[in-house]
């Protein structure tokens, strides 16, 4: 039967499809082996989120550590709440005192959230070591940001119109 040659070609076809799939995964979507791994959630309230969208990235000093998973309006306070998904490898990494700000990459680029890590009091560090408060849930005493926690220190997006308005207002006063 001549099907031997066909079988080899089908095998090559499948291999080609797998290579193409890998190319899409690794080079195009940057789907590292751990890229789709576990995440934990954080919340933050902003006065104004500007052009931030779901799936915008969360960066620490330019390194992507997570993504915005959801943006919604708080029912009573009527201010935007942003839900973040941070990769689990950064669990117990960022202190409670970290701050968030909405930044823009370049002049016209897309907006992202910059996370500025805070500090930890030395006595808290001792407490972690002694009581192991971060090792077992609930983490309420843990001085690191943990699942579901809210980041209180936030800076809103810079809105160009507000800036210009402010500038003109100041000019008028002089």
């Amino acid at each position, binding site marked *: 039967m001549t*099907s031997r040659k*066909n*079988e080899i*070609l*089908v095998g*090559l*076809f*499948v291999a*080609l*499809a797998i*290579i*193409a*799939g890998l*190319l*899409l*995964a690794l*080079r*195009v*979507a*940057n*789907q590292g082996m751990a*890229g*789709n791994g576990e995440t934990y959630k954080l919340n933050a309230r902003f006065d104004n989120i500007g052009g931030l969208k*779901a*799936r915008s*990235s969360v960066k620490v000093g330019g390194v*992507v550590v997570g993504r915005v998973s959801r943006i919604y309006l708080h029912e009573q306070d009527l201010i935007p709440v942003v839900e973040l998904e941070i990769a689990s490898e950064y669990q117990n990494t960022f202190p409670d005192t970290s701050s968030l700000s909405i930044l823009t990459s370049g002049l*016209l680029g897309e907006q992202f959230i910059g996370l500025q890590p805070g500090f930890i009091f030395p006595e808290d560090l001792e407490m972690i070591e002694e009581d192991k408060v971060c090792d077992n849930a609930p983490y309420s005493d843990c001085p690191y940001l943990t699942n579901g926690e809210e980041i209180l220190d936030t800076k809103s997006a810079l809105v160009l119109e507000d800036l210009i308005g402010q500038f003109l207002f100041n000019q008028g006063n002089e």
Partner: protein
Amino acid sequence: MEILQRLGRNTIDTFASIGAASLMLYGALIAIPKWKNIRLTVEQMYVVGVQSLLIILVSGLFIGMVMALQGYTILVNYGAEGSLGPMVALSILRELGPVVTALLFAGRAGSALTAEIGLMKATEQLSSLEMMAVDPLRRIVSPRFWAGVISMPMLAIIFSAVGILGGHLVGVDWLGVDAGSYWSIMQSTVDWNEDVINGVIKALVFAVVIVWIALFKGYSCIPTSEGISKATTETVVYASLAILGLDFVLTALMFGIS
């Protein structure tokens, strides 16, 4: 009155053929797959997959190149040629990859399937299978169905990958967009689930529809040379329309409502 009558008859005919097509698929897929059938499926993957590869590779490359060229001339006006990568990648992964592959697949493999089965019917090969106590639905239709459904998403993935490389060829190597920004902005914009997997799901849905239409048109054609040519044309027309219509529905479901 006559118009109403005709409308009614056409509606009933439409439902009848949908029913017949469903029964055909049911008859073909109900069987427990056997080792022999897997071999037959591989054989058919050669026909519908490997033999469609060249046209997919060439058109993928050219569509990627054209996308890069078109995108560049617009983006460069805003100094945003760095966004060429995501533009090419997203439009190919979400739309052009699955849709163009499906249209080419319908024209290349779908019509061939219809003609092949139609001819087997016309030359009494299907009848003779039945008389040899071999169910043509399982022996002929089922392997072709699976081969098409497996091959077509693979072709779409290959198309997308080649298209993005084609975009790289024109955008980076020819027009001088920075290679780093082509890939890195693409990587930060393209999402695996949202863009790549959704594209593959689209391709899978198109594959089922194309192969189904092609097999049914062949299986139910009037076994004359005229009937086969009509069935082949209908396969391409119906499959193409179904692809475009379904594409809208799928896009609305996947990307429209968030």
